């Protein structure tokens, strides 16, 4: 078991990480150990995040299984076009993030800054589409539970037209829609903060001197947020039956 769990960074990387420009923190023995610890730490944190969103997914699964028609009716009120477009935007930001990590690994300072900036812009684009093209129209339709739940006549008619759908349970769907997309957007905002930090740090050249762990683990976080959306998109927008 020792052997099995202890396979770690292979020697080419170990050499690359042993750069003179960066000195590891006092508790570590070398740069490679620090890198491994940082990476494992982020993965463990992401496990926590999985379970955090997991609670919401669990609630969603329970209510969807009980109130399928209402959840399908709610789902069909969402705009699948914007959902799909946003998925593409977020996937693109993941690509630029991956390229940013690569730029840090290959010590290309300018490329790093450009890709981080692109990632941020795509992230902002995602939030913009979400806010202006989805949440604001939702507000106009009066389908924001708690804050503004006065569904318009069309919404009511749509719900009534779906066999088995009931307005209060469609409200429950929208509760989960806003909690899940809201919590996701909150994580995006945090991600943008991290990107800003990377950008400032990258200007000093600290991230392209061999110690690219901050970029790598920020990337892990960003990709995780992307993965959450990869599941939110079909669960919220698609499986209501668009046919």
């Amino acid at each position, binding site marked *: 078991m020792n052997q*099995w769990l202890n396979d770690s960074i292979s020697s080419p990387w170990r050499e690359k990480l042993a750069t003179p420009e960066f000195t590891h923190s006092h508790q570590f023995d070398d740069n490679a150990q620090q890198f491994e610890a940082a*990476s494992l730490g982020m993965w463990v944190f992401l*496990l926590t995040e999985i379970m955090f969103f997991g609670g919401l*997914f669990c609630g969603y699964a329970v209510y969807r299984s009980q109130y399928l028609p209402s959840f399908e009716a709610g789902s069909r009120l969402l705009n699948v076009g914007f959902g799909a477009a946003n998925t593409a935007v977020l996937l693109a930001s993941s690509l630029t993030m*991956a390229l940013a990590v*690569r730029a840090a690994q*290959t010590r290309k300072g300018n490329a790093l800054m450009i890709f981080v900036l692109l990632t941020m812009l795509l992230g902002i684009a995602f939030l913009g589409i979400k806010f202006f093209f989805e949440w604001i129209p939702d507000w106009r339709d009066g389908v924001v539970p708690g804050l503004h739940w006065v569904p318009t006549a069309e919404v009511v008619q749509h719900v009534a037209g779906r066999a088995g759908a009931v307005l209060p349970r469609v409200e429950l769907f929208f509760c989960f829609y806003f909690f899940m997309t809201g919590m996701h957007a909150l994580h995006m905002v945090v991600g943008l903060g991290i990107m800003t930090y990377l950008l400032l740090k990258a200007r000093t050249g600290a991230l392209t001197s061999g110690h690219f762990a901050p970029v790598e683990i920020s990337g892990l976080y960003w990709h995780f947020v992307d993965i959450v959306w990869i599941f939110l998109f079909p669960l919220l927008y698609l499986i209501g039956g668009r046919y």
Partner: protein
Amino acid sequence: MSEGTVPVRIYLTIFACLLALTALTTGVAFIDMGPLNTVAALTIAVGKMLLVILFFMHLRHSPRLTKVAVLAGFFWLVLLIGLTLADPLTRHWTPGPSPWDGTTTQPQP
């Protein structure tokens, strides 16, 4: 991570796959397949997730420990959702009377 950096070409290919899968899952949602719609949507989502985890997050080249950790995370997620659903999905199930049940109760109509 053993081969050093991943070539840009691979990142671009993965991105193209992800976009194609997004188009596919959106398209499939417009075809009536009954319960299979849900299955298809989730299968494609899992596929996309695997692409992101394995390539963008470099899990393919990560230490075995990281892979174990990721598996553990999904295992626990399945536990949470699966065991919770075990209750609401079976609330209408009443066990039938069994031969050793004695005579104090009668079967339900």
